[in-house]
């Protein structure tokens, strides 16, 4: 498989007069295709607070369907509010994944809270939009997908898909908090749940992709795309080892014919860092979508999307 980079699409810092809550970062892109434009949801951050802490909001940028490098619209407000005191999404709604449900758009999103012994916990909630994805109303104040004995914390990175009449939610669940130089670093793995209605989910209770990069590797952002008779998963990961490794990101790849059993094959991913530019240190958090006969990958560049995301195009077949 071969991805040809077409360039950087969006960097919040390039938008003059942008709101404070969209100060920097454009992470975890996810698309919703309209007649004339492609809405790309992403997550962004205001400057750090007095304690040096970030919160995350989700927003969108609309790209001209016929020229994806032309921005035609930008969210004026976060698409989801942060949660009330004590709730799972009090300090961030990031990332999110959207799917059309008739006239509605449903967003599965990860909500962040802060803990004492570890920096954060994460759970997955649901928001519903009746205005074509401009704003979302939360279905409830708590998470949709619950923790369980085998998924004890940090359930995040939801990606919702509809295949063969059923809904699939690919996500990650915490495996362990690993102490590195006395600091807790998260290791999470790719998981899946299946649903007939998008509300009631049956967990598979299974880690989908084996480790490859190293001990306690952290897997994230499992983006699944169907093409050429196979399901293709592009995901992101890192190894919580030393500072450099913990802060770096890589893109991994696996394929499946049944959505349950996956074969990891990173060699075939077909995209890597550039020699210079916004993605010369890392490519991360891939999202693949088809548009008008072409297949595209949105991906983050350096510092996990601090300077926004770029676009690559598939050349030839995927399988």
């Amino acid at each position, binding site marked *: 498989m071969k991805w040809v980079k077409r360039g950087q699409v969006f960097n919040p810092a390039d938008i003059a007069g942008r709101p404070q809550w969209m100060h920097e970062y454009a992470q975890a892109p996810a698309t919703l295709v309209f007649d004339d434009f492609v809405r790309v949801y992403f997550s962004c951050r205001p400057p750090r607070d007095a304690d040096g802490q970030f919160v995350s909001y989700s927003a969108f940028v609309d790209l001209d369907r016929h020229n994806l490098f032309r921005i035609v619209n930008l969210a004026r407000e976060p698409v989801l509010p942060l949660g009330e005191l*004590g709730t799972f999404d009090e300090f961030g709604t990031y990332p999110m994944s959207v799917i059309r449900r008739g006239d509605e758009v449903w967003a599965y999103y990860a909500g962040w*809270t802060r803990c004492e012994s570890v920096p954060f*916990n994460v759970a997955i909630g649901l928001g519903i939009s009746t205005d074509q994805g401009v704003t979302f109303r939360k279905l409830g104040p708590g998470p949709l997908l619950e923790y369980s*004995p085998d998924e004890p914390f940090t359930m995040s990175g939801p990606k919702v898909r509809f295949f063969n009449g059923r809904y699939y939610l690919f996500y990650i669940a915490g495996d362990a908090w690993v102490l590195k130089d006395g600091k*807790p670093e998260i290791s999470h793995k790719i998981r899946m749940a299946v649903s007939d209605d998008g509300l009631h989910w049956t967990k598979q209770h299974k880690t989908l992709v084996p480790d490859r990069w190293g001990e306690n590797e952290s897997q994230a952002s499992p983006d699944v795309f169907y093409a050429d008779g196979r399901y293709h998963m592009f995901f992101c990961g890192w190894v919580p080892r030393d500072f450099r490794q913990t802060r770096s990101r890589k893109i991994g790849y696996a394929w499946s014919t049944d959505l349950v059993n996956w074969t990891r094959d990173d060699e075939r991913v077909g995209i890597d860092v550039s020699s210079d530019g916004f993605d010369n240190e890392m490519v991360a958090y891939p999202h693949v979508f088809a548009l008008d006969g072409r297949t595209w990958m949105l991906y983050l560049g350096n510092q996990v999307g601090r300077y926004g995301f770029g676009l690559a195009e598939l050349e030839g077949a995927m399988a």
Partner: protein
Amino acid sequence: MKWRKLGKIFDVAQSDFAGEFIGYAQSPQALVCEDRVRFYFSTRPPAENGKFVSVVQYVDMSRDFRTVLGRSHGTVVPLGKLGTFDEHGIFPFSVFRHDGAVWGYSNGWNRRKSVSVDTAIGLAISHDDGQTFTKLGDGPVLGPSLHEPYLVCDPFVRVFDGVFHMWYIYGTGWKAAAPGEAPDRTYVIAHATSADGIEWRRSGRPIITQKHPEECQALPSVIRLGARYHMVFCHRHTFGFRTDPARGYRLGYAWSDDLVHWQRDDARCGLEASTGEWDSDMVCYPHLFACDGKTYLAYNGNHFGRDGFGLAELESEH
């Protein structure tokens, strides 16, 4: 209901646990054994960095509750790993015999930043008659959900007619009594059922009417006497409950004939605070159990059970 108070049957400071633990024998929960009654409770080792944790221990008493026959040694159920729901404490711990083993549902808690804690309910099983328990996993069996967003805790589980019933509580709000003060929580009693004790179906609504919107309801305990189910729980005000006895924990009561509809009737509870006694300012963390044909109520008194627990015997259901 008419109760005869048997007094404070377990005093931490007078016990073998003194020194090893700084006090507290909270939320006593009984497991009737062949020649004894084992009371599980939550206690506190000396605090590290000024922050306490809650751990489960037990004391064995004769079936007339007059003699201590034994106690736990070491860890009964371990606290959770880094970042888990039960990392900083288990309190309370609800035990019962099932299928040749002893099942224990834990209320695990962990510290948060914007609020003091969050909680969830775990399951651990013992194959040595309740001396040690092994957890089903690192995560909870019942935790926050769409409409029960936090503070899912205080499990009390029993099997009636082949169905697992769990009474528990969940949070309905965190708010500060005044700007700048630490937020306090409000919670209510709910109910879930299960075929296997692991996958739970929540009834999705509070089951006990609140006396006012700032009432907190905690520690539901249920027993069947004849055809009727009786629930004793404790309740307090959201604010000021630590210092004002009028806002502190008291017992509440409700009954049901179908395990679905509950009729609250606190006046019938029949167990009040005793002036000048160990339970003068507070009555909390009730636990109903049967032993040798009698019905008992174990509970804590002042200071949230700091000094020990007491017992009362049911004299009349009416």
